[in-house]
């Protein structure tokens, strides 16, 4: 089991993707949540002179879209680019051919640990980002907008269901699969030379980002049937 799924390699990849991306992900999503709360409050006050529902609306947006998509895009630009560059380098230095000569399938040695690590990492990062986002949202609601803890939790309970949280984790898993697979694909199709590595890395990030946005829409539409 350990050998088949290359667990030690997967652990290293999880450390690279999740652990090392954690500070930047939490920092960015916290600010995104703060901006979401403040903007929602501003618009609601302007439109209906009442922002009592803002924590609920904002939390729903954070859980369903913001935290998971921002996390996935950040991981794409940090870890996805790293993975694509690493695999491209392996490709142009003929390490992939060496693996084949040793009778090791490149996908099982290169792609599988990264795939497992990406999926697990994105699930973990999404859970952490969701919680941190909500904490930031609560903090700014409490300090700046004057919502008490009870008002915030009450508003959350009114709009948020536990399945919102679970579906965001599912989205994270799908985005993890996209990031690792796209990075592997562009890395393995890298052309020789430094230009080739640069191009494959760029293309990998662009393609992953586009796919994340499109798949987010598709998953959002599919999940809407579950409510």
């Amino acid at each position: 089991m350990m050998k088949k799924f290359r667990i030690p390699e997967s652990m290293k990849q999880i450390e690279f993707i999740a652990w090392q991306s954690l500070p930047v992900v939490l920092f960015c999503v916290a600010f995104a949540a703060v901006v979401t709360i403040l903007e929602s409050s501003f618009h609601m006050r302007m439109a209906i002179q009442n922002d009592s529902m803002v924590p609920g609306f904002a939390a729903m947006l954070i859980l369903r879209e913001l935290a998971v998509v921002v996390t996935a895009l950040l991981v794409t630009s940090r870890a996805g680019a790293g993975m694509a560059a690493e695999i491209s380098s392996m490709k142009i230095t003929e390490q992939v051919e060496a693996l084949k000569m040793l009778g090791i399938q490149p996908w099982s040695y290169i792609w599988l640990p990264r795939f497992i690590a990406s999926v697990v990492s994105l699930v973990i990062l999404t859970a952490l980002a969701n919680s941190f986002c909500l904490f930031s949202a609560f903090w700014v609601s409490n300090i700046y907008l004057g919502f008490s803890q009870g008002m915030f939790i009450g508003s959350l309970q009114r709009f948020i269901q536990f399945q919102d949280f679970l579906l965001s984790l599912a989205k994270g898993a799908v985005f993890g699969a996209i990031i690792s697979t796209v990075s592997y694909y562009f890395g393995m199709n890298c052309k020789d030379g430094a230009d080739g590595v640069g191009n494959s890395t760029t293309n990998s990030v662009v393609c992953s980002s586009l796919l994340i946005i499109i798949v987010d829409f598709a998953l959002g539409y599919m999940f809407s049937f579950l409510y």
Partner: protein
Amino acid sequence: MKSEQKVGLLFFLSILLVAFFAWAIGFINPFSQTHSLKVLYNYAGGIEVGSPVRVMGIKVGKVSRIQFDALKKSTTGEEAKLVIEIEIDKKAWSSVRKDSRFFINLAGVIGEKFLEISPGSLSQPEFEPGESVRGEDPPRIDQLISQSYGLAGKIIELVEKNEGSVSSTIAQLDKLVTNVNKTLVLLEKTSQNKDVSRLVDNAIKISDDLAYLTGQLRTKKAEDTYELVHKLLFRLENLDGPAVRKFLQDEGIKAKIF
């Protein structure tokens, strides 16, 4: 720190946060102390699973399940095909009595639905957990609007059919209002006339005098006078012209009265 330790830490943290989140939004609550109650409706006005339950305006639970039961009847035998299962905190359980009423209300800017329970009287017993009770069906706005449309249609039809009569009635009403206005103007002018004012003042004085006189007539003295006059007239009734003349001649008075 090794990779495995870091990954383990992240896993542990994630699971902890998922559990915390589930508890925070009320999905799981291992320390909950609630009793359930089944409230029967025929129309629930858009209430959903998770909608709050309030007693005297304070949130004390939520709607936990909604079931359709075509054969369900209330204790009075009335059909109520919608079973809404609610959870109520034990702290509020004693406020819910057999005579409590279960309303579906609207709250907030966006019209959030909630189940409001009116507190029962202490003379009534408490519910048993899981017991069924008939709720008060909320008014159906769509039905009201539909009925209003029907009523408006009928009014329009009536007006169209009797367009001539309605027009003439309106014209007559218009004339009536004009006449009333004119009359009111005349009355106002009249009230400002000096002679009329004097007339009214005199009428008031006369009325006061009459009131005084009629008041005096009810006194004992007036009654006695009336009695005396009555007796006098009774005695004078038999007198005629010759008798009076004879009386006067007897007395030596010559007069040409008759």
